[in-house]
């Protein structure tokens, strides 16, 4: 029983991270209809940035978010303004190929610059505490609560601010938004900036718990697909729900299926994706339809 509870706790904590990790992918897809295959590479960039700041200035990965997020916002903003806005009105395959090209480029540039050697961010508090008979890994627990806070702030931003409402309007009906004076290209660029900033933040928070290397991104893009299929496009509660389901499934399989360990996380993710697409292709919530079509 203790083993099960511990596995559920670990799955929940992992799910919180997955929830914030997938948001950028899910919102870009939901608002703009672009499947960002470079999602994992932006996460990798955030992780490398946290590592570089830790190495150069001893900056804690969580503190580094105040630098990582603005820098990644600019990266996302420029990516959308300079590249994606030019292909967004064309058939979906075009944007898919462009982001695929970006993912390959980023990973290989990082390989040239940093080599393929894994990097680590050895924070001093990478231990655990016992509470209520359960073991709470400190970093993962911190990640969970920071992730929840980010999701809550993003929710408030989208619901309460005029900029957030403009993003929702653009997602629901871009032509109607255009015709009332909303500059869609700018809204898209800001949306991409926010999404890439969140993805970079997820990478920075991941840095104390996982080796950082140039090709670490791809599995996260694949997991983002699964979580989005579970939770729906552009929906914060859906991202959290999908993240928790995937996190718990991965941990339960790793805990209770002998000889698997944590190495088959991506395989579990894919099995879940295939099962979802066969059994409930519309997803648990709204599935993989763009937000505009959902309306």
């Amino acid at each position, binding site marked *: 029983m203790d083993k099960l509870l511990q596995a559920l706790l670990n799955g929940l904590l992992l799910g919180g991270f997955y929830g914030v990790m997938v948001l950028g992918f899910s919102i870009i897809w939901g608002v703009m209809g672009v499947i960002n295959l470079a999602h994992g590479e932006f996460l990798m960039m955030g992780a490398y940035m946290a590592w570089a700041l830790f190495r150069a200035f001893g900056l804690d990965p969580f503190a580094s978010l105040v630098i990582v997020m603005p820098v990644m916002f600019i990266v996302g903003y420029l990516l959308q303004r300079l590249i994606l806005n030019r292909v967004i009105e064309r058939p979906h395959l075009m944007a898919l190929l462009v982001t695929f090209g970006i993912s390959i480029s980023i990973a290989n540039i990082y390989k040239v610059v940093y080599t393929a050697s894994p990097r680590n961010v050895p924070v001093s508090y990478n231990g655990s505490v016992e509470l209520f008979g359960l073991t709470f890994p400190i970093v993962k627990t911190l990640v969970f609560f920071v992730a929840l806070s980010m999701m809550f702030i993003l929710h408030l*931003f989208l619901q*309460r*601010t*005029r*900029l957030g*409402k*403009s993003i*929702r*309007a653009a997602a*629901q*009906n871009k*032509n*109607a*938004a*255009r*015709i*009332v*004076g*909303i*500059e*869609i290209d*700018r809204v898209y660029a*800001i949306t991409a900036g926010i999404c890439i900033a969140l993805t970079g933040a997820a990478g920075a928070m991941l840095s104390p718990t996982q080796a950082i290397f140039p090709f670490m991104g791809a599995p996260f893009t694949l997991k983002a697909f699964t979580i989005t299929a579970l939770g729906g496009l552009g929906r914060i509660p859906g991202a959290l729900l999908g993240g928790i389901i995937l996190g718990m499934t991965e941990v339960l399989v790793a805990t209770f299926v002998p000889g698997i360990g944590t190495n088959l996380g991506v395989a579990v993710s894919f099995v879940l994706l295939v099962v979802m697409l066969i059994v409930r292709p519309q997803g648990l919530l709204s599935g993989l339809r763009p937000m505009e079509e959902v*309306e």
Partner: protein
Amino acid sequence: MNHSVELLRGEHVTKYFGGLAAVDGVDIVVRSGEIVGLIGPNGSGKTTLFNCLSRLLPIDNGRIVFKGHDITNARPYQVARMGLSRTFQVIRVYRKMTVLENMLISRQWRGETLWGMLKPSHPATERRARELLDFLKLSHLIDEYAGNLSGGQRRLLEIGMALMPDPDLVLLDEATSGVNPTLIEEIKDHIRELNREQGKAFLLIEHNINFIADLCERVYVLNYGKLLAHGTPQEIMENEAVIEAYFGA
């Protein structure tokens, strides 16, 4: 009403879809304070012409001028900010936002900084939204999600959204489509009042000929993308080419 000032001019507007000319060399003018009708059989190019004039579609030939500015290559949001609003044949409201939010979103991004957009709506903007909703008799639905409104109420909301930026010219695409007769009379009264009291100009696409005859001073008729006729409603209804286009007789 002073009709001397030309608001919108389309010169030889042409739009091709593949090899087909959906709009073929159409000349159209709307002056300030006018209510002008645009009619034609299904597929005659009316909505495509609206899309060209509001810049949702690029044109292949011709020129569009609004308030003296060449807007042929302008972006839709720029045209909207200059004072040209429109509605759509298929109602486009934000179904998952409240009626008030729908109104407020329709007056965004007017020269504001990114920082400014993080603040709540200006009280004057909200006041205007409430006044318009009152005018359109939608005040009691202010906190209702737009997706829960009836078709007619959504149509009124869409008109309200088009009016939020205080436009000089409103293009209404089949404003009476799917609306009950009582509400059609209300829409007619609203248009008339906005025209008389506030000097708003309207260009109306309509299939409801009585609606056009009651409101419009001039009517353009399209057929197969070309301008078939232009005149007063009376002249148009007596025009043999128009009768043949509609009834094939």
